[in-house]
């Protein structure tokens, strides 16, 4: 294994279990919801640390978000990532996946060389899983989605097992490449005390659109082709027919109701 420069893209998201929807208005209640590192991104961080431990090299965590998103970079550093880069400016706000991926790709290109980009498989708030493949397209590098086994690096290419709809597949890809890391492919570690100390002190690089030489028409809301038009509450169906009596009686009644849907003998013996 050789030393790699690995970029891990991570995202700060509202705590998945605590974001609530107002059942009357259908609006999302964000007040007081704690912000956390996107759960899937821990697996990407862990794979970057494992690669660094086997072959040496360096890991850089990058996120695009508000000033508070710095917290997820510090968390990555506490786990063992070397540096953090925060893409932060009002003009980045309102980005859809295309504008997010464009900004991250610009940021990565301004880092002065890289061998591998890792992302989570999807975020719990964006939930599209699109950002990883789109970063790869903007960087002009190949990608594989849903890495399921540790990567092997041989010379100027890597070998990656990933999950497909039809099974598992081993790809040989030239470096640099991008991999989205499947949930559960490894066991993310906990931060060490030394890591936590370092995370507190470490300087974080903050870049705006000028530092990454971004085209202002391609970032934030201006660079986002998609528009959210409305949110509504899903319609609830009417209350069901509750069957009555003992369990045996309920099952008999059920089989009677379902008689024409079930195979052969089901309806037969009430």
């Amino acid at each position, binding site marked *: 294994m050789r030393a790699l420069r690995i970029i891990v893209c991570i995202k700060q998201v509202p705590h998945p279990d605590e974001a609530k929807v107002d059942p009357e208005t259908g609006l999302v209640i964000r007040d007081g919801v704690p912000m956390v590192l996107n759960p899937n991104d821990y697996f990407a961080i862990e794979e970057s640390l494992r690669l660094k431990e086997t072959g040496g090299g360096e890991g850089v965590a990058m996120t695009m978000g508000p000033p508070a998103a710095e917290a997820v970079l510090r968390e990555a550093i506490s786990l063992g990532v070397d540096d953090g880069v925060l893409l932060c400016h009002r003009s980045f706000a309102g980005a859809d996946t295309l504008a997010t991926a464009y900004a991250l790709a610009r940021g990565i290109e301004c880092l002065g060389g890289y061998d591998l980009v890792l992302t989570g498989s999807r975020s719990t708030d964006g939930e599209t899983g699109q950002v990883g*493949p789109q970063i790869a397209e903007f960087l002009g590098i*190949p*990608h594989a989605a849903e890495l399921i086994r540790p990567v092997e690096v041989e010379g100027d290419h890597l070998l990656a097992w990933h999950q497909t709809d039809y099974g598992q597949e*081993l790809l040989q890809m030239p470096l640099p490449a991008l991999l989205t890391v499947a949930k559960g492919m490894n066991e993310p570690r906990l931060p060490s005390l030394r890591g936590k100390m370092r995370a507190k002190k470490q300087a974080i690089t903050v870049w705006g659109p000028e530092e990454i030489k971004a085209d202002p028409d391609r970032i934030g809301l201006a660079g986002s082709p998609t528009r959210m038009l409305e949110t509504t509450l899903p319609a609830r169906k009417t209350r*069901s027919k509750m069957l009555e009596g003992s*369990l045996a009686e309920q099952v008999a009644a059920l089989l009677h109701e379902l008689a024409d*849907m079930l195979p052969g003998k089901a309806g037969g013996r009430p």
Partner: protein
Amino acid sequence: MKEVWVYAESEGGRLHPVVSELLGEGRRLAERIGGSLGAVLASSHASLAEELALWADRVYVIQDQSPYTDEWQGQALARLIEAYQPGIVLFGGTRRGKSLAPRVAARLRTGLIADCTSLRLDDGGLLLAELPTFGGRLLTTIACPGHRPQMATLAPGAFAPGPKGSGGEIINCPWAAPEVRAVEVVAQEPLPEEDRPLMGAEIVIAGGRGIGSRANFALLEEVASLLGAAVGASRAAVDAGWVEPEGLIGQTGVIVRPRLYIACGISGATQHVVGMQRSEVIVAVNKDPKAPIFDLATYGVVGDCRQFLLELKRHLAPSRPVDEENEGEND
């Protein structure tokens, strides 16, 4: 611009089941805008192009023997889209669709709307795509007003297949396949052939945390085979290790719309509900009469799901007497 395209995902000479759903929805949209329906196929299996021509007005074939990679098919698709300029391009929200479509959209610098469960068109032909967000607690409508094509991935199982067309034209596009390939497929380990795949199943019986144990889940599987049903699960049952993740139904799993869905020991969390609410008939079995699943069930059974399964088994396999003490666990 008047054409609606669907990406006809295939592997090993077979179309993915989601393709019939894409063709169905694609046809509906094409009729609304007074346009035609195109299907893009990257396969050298001539029979697939002929099959697609039964449904689509035009089948664009990228003839290529190489194994699929996102890299080359992304380039090939983008070239085709630039050449023919369809107004709408739909992909299945399969692993492949969700890996390929983002690259194509980025290459064309257009928008891509993910995991749609319903599509409409406004009077100006703008695609209004609806998808569940916040774990299914909300429905969000997204559009791509200023960029073309309008692209979306459609949640598998959420759309109905449509009627056949009047026999389409097959267009071979050899020039669409790029020459440079950097990624190579070195090895493949196919999934074992599933006995009763979830998607497309007529009957699905699913278990949740209330099933209680691996042994009880085995009882559910036994009942499923008596019913000829596919086995599904909630996240809680998958996390407990009683069933493989392939069985997960819901927001992070598959969407099913069988004729009959039986939910055993599932509370009805919105993340689960988005995956099964379109089932024709829903039976819910839960010991808690206030469980939210009863709000959308057609028939509700209040009681212990293990007892329910034993009772059901007794009816379905009446010849073999059931020894209750040896069936599953009571915990």
